[in-house]
């Protein structure tokens, strides 16, 4: 299990941010073309950076906590996953924040509807009591 630590951490990041897509209406996963246009070029640049950094031993990875699967140019599989997962988390955050600020996040509507449905007489009873 220890060799999956890095991947499990990435999986948790995806799991924790997934509600942003639906509860906050981020619509990142549901716009795959735009997602690819954003992550693709960044992924290429940062993959090259990672390969250079590994070759120059700026950093390396503990074998205990990684699968040992190595991609071209000596980049571990986990790093590729990182360069996809973390940007997706950031995009979900950006869109969730935007939808909260302009009130278009589904959760804003749900909360508003709940409030509107509160029976008014009940409230006056509370006040008189």
């Amino acid at each position: 299990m220890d060799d999956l630590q890095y991947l499990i951490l990435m999986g948790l990041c995806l799991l924790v941010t997934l509600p942003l897509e639906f509860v906050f209406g981020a619509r990142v996963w549901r716009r795959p073309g735009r997602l690819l246009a954003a992550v693709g070029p960044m992924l290429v640049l940062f993959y090259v950076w990672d390969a250079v950094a590994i070759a120059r031993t700026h950093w390396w990875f503990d074998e205990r906590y990684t699968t040992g699967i190595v991609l071209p140019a000596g980049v571990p599989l986990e790093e590729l996953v990182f360069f996809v997962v973390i940007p997706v988390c950031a995009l979900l955050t950006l869109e969730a924040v935007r939808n909260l600020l302009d009130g278009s996040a589904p959760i804003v509507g749900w909360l508003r509807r709940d409030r509107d449905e509160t029976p008014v007489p009940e409230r006056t009873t509370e006040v008189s009591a």
Partner: protein
Amino acid sequence: MPEYTILAVLAAAAVVIAEVRWLRTGVFRSRPYWIAMGICYFFMIWVNGWLTKLSAPIVLYDPDMKTPWRFPWDIPVEDYVFGFAMLTLVLMLWEHAGRRERVGARAQEPPT
């Protein structure tokens, strides 16, 4: 030479220049961008903190390739600069792609 430190600063500068000179998405003047970056940095501390903790590090760094500063816990300060470059670039490209989609959609509308 602290090569990681130098590369991180160069990358962050390159991303800022790409925005100002070329993409001009306006992220640096947008509230959602700064708020989202703040939230990302908050969560980055936990994820990065786990990856770099010196008690059982997943990622290890050559001390000669970076500054000795780590904060909080054992996170190399360079990682925040790396993170700024990576996240800002992807958010910029997302905004850029969104703008192109909107322009494309408008171009397909029948002329009024």
